[in-house]
């Protein structure tokens, strides 16, 4: 069943078009990779789907409700409860410990302090970083920080995780530890994942790959139709 949908979404930054009418369905529990060359609009699409950016035209619907017309406060609430976000880096609050960082979304949603800490510790354990619960981000490796950020994205048990190049700043093994756990836990919980990446080996974690090219979905699914249609160059 489709949970999240983009319909003919258009977005420009000033005179530069980033998305030229993108339509995409995300089904419940589906892991979908959005790929394509640099500048193809994949991050912009993720930001529109997550309600961080408002499209210039087109619609974003969540469980049949149009959300792109909602107020910033309402979209922000949706991101705190139903969505989780994971970026390349710089997401943890430097002054807080790992456990406090992970507990943060729960505290913002009104969960009691003790309960939030217990849940945070459980999620750190699931991500294999229980040992850094009381460390601050500056005392952790990049891979540990990203696993904490993943725990924080999952702690509210969201319906969709948006991950924008989540392993872009990590070495291969650290990146794999983040992704294998994210995908495994998302599957266990039936959480959908929208994974933006330009790397084939990262896209291979998904059930399905959507290729963008010049701000539109490339229907060959290979990012190659333009060169095919153009014949020999």
């Amino acid at each position, binding site marked *: 069943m489709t949970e999240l949908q983009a319909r003919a979404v258009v977005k420009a930054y000033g005179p530069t078009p980033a998305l030229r009418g993108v339509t995409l369905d995300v089904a419940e529990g589906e892991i979908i990779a959005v790929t394509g060359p640099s500048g193809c609009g994949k991050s912009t699409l993720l930001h529109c789907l997550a309600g961080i950016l408002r499209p210039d035209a087109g619609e974003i619907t969540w469980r049949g409700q149009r959300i792109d017309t909602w107020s910033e406060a309402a979209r922000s609430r949706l991101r705190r409860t139903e969505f989780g976000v994971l970026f390349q880096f710089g997401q943890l609050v430097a002054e807080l410990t790992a456990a406090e960082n992970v507990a943060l979304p729960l505290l913002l949603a009104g969960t009691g302090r003790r309960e939030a800490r217990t849940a945070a510790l459980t999620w750190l354990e699931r991500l294999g970083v229980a040992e850094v619960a009381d460390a601050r981000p500056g005392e952790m490796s990049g891979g540990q920080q990203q696993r904490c950020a993943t725990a924080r994205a999952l702690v509210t048990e969201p319906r969709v995780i948006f991950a924008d190049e989540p392993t872009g700043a990590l070495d291969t093994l650290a990146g794999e530890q983040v992704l294998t756990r994210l995908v495994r836990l998302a599957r266990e919980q039936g959480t959908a994942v929208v994974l933006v990446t330009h790397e084939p080996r990262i896209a291979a974690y998904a059930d399905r790959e959507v290729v963008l090219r010049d701000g539109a979905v490339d229907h060959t699914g290979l990012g190659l139709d333009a060169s095919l249609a153009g014949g*020999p160059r």
Partner: protein
Amino acid sequence: MAGVSTPHVLLGLLATGTKHGYELKRAHDARLPRARPLAFGQVYATLGRLQRDGLVAAAGQEREGGPERTAYALTGDGRAALDRWLSEVEPPMPYVAGTLFAKVVVALLAADVDRARAWLIAQRRAHTERLRELTAVKTSPTAALDELVAVDFAIAHLDADLRWLHTTLDRVADWHREVHS
């Protein structure tokens, strides 16, 4: 997998203790979980050659409710040969060759750029599917480390091939012009 030295792999397996042919085959398939399984015929033929060359020796007969089986042990020469092999650095890609590469060259010579491109796209799809299949092994909670290491090896090579397929797709038209100029 091209170029794997089955004799040395068998010597390595015998270094852990005396084994008969069936045990060697089982140990090989367990330790190299995603390799093509070793045929019994190949095990016995290789053991025959290793014995002829004095690298292994028969170490008694065994019978467990079936036919009599010969157990083999590593000899001193066998251990030395194994040690030499383990110390040798493999020449990193001494010849630039491979079916993927050769096929594009031949497609450009014998057919045209569209044929080469169509093949590159089809091959890329097949590579992507295999990459996804092997990646699924990594996210399985029950995957053993043996298997993860084997799968990593395949994924790294598929990933490299995919990058080459992608770059070559962008270059194939220029290349075709050069081949036929």
